[in-house]
């Protein structure tokens, strides 16, 4: 009798395992068949100086660093977007084919231990993430990413400016 009362749960457990198993096989199979398949283990790392530190930075912390002038903001969007408006004092470093040449022009002026905050626009915009990985590879230790940076910064009424910004 005990066995019978326990059976719906056992049945559920078996079904849950099967659902996940089938979804796993189909999901990975379809991914394998796709021409643009994802690697099973992607490289999402933006290694910051201290272990366990998250790459993304909350808006409040970014605003604090801004007011203390303790961080350098780098805009990963296209030049036109930057000219239309950007975080006050931010440098423009669009994430495109020419990023390396542009980077060399500004790199000398940035001390390697400077906190850098990259941003672009839109919650799933990955330009700032890719730029953060790139800067980290170039030896900058404290690179953070302000997700959906332009929108959240502007909506919070924090200082912005427009134009082409400081000359490199």
């Amino acid at each position, binding site marked *: *009798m005990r066995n*019978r*009362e326990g*059976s*719906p*749960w056992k*049945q*559920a*457990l*078996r*079904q*849950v395992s*099967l*659902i*996940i198993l*089938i*979804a*796993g096989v*189909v*999901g*990975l199979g*379809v*991914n394998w068949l*796709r021409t*643009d398949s*994802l*690697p*099973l*283990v*992607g*490289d*999402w*790392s933006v290694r910051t100086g201290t272990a366990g530190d*998250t*790459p*993304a930075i*909350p*808006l*409040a912390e970014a605003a604090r660093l801004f007011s203390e002038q303790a961080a350098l903001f780098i805009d990963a969007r296209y030049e036109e977007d930057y000219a239309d408006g950007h975080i006050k004092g931010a440098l423009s470093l669009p994430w495109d084919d020419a990023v390396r040449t542009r980077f060399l022009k500004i790199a000398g002026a940035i001390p390697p231990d400077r906190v850098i905050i990259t941003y672009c626009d*839109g*919650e*799933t*915009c*990955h330009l700032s*993430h890719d730029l953060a990985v790139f800067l980290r590879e170039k030896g900058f230790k404290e690179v953070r990413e302000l*997700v*959906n940076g332009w929108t*959240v910064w502007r909506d919070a009424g924090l200082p912005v400016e427009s134009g082409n910004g400081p000359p490199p």
Partner: protein
Amino acid sequence: MKYKDKEATRPYIAGIAYHAARWILGVVFIYAGIHKILDPAAFARAVHLYQILPDGLVNLVALVLPWVELFLGFLFVIGIWMPGAAVLSTLLFMVFMGALSYNLARGLDIGCGCFSTSPAAEAASIRTVARDGMFLVVSLYLLCATFGVAFLRGLRKRGDS
């Protein structure tokens, strides 16, 4: 027999509610799953932005979770494997709600990644947490209903034997 006559309308209403709940969750899961299956890379980014999973698991979850959702949706609509489907959907809604609330609390402004993975998609907010909570309630109801039926069936069988 007497019991049946007296309570004739109650199982009828319960039946409607049960099938309605089943269909609601079915459609929600199919809709949510399809969007993510169509653009796995975008969904992987959304998962990454939640910053909850270790980097090594982001792509795996982004590839498998949408199919779990789609499969669950079909099970709900067809109405088979209900105990497993109800348990899994309840767990999923709890995890989604936890992940959304956690990121709201730590002030990360990220996309919900719930029904759309496009950049113009809705942000994670109190509203998306509340919506998730409503689905969780429907799922919990279905869980109780499913296990109630299974339990009663077990009792009846016990009575027969």
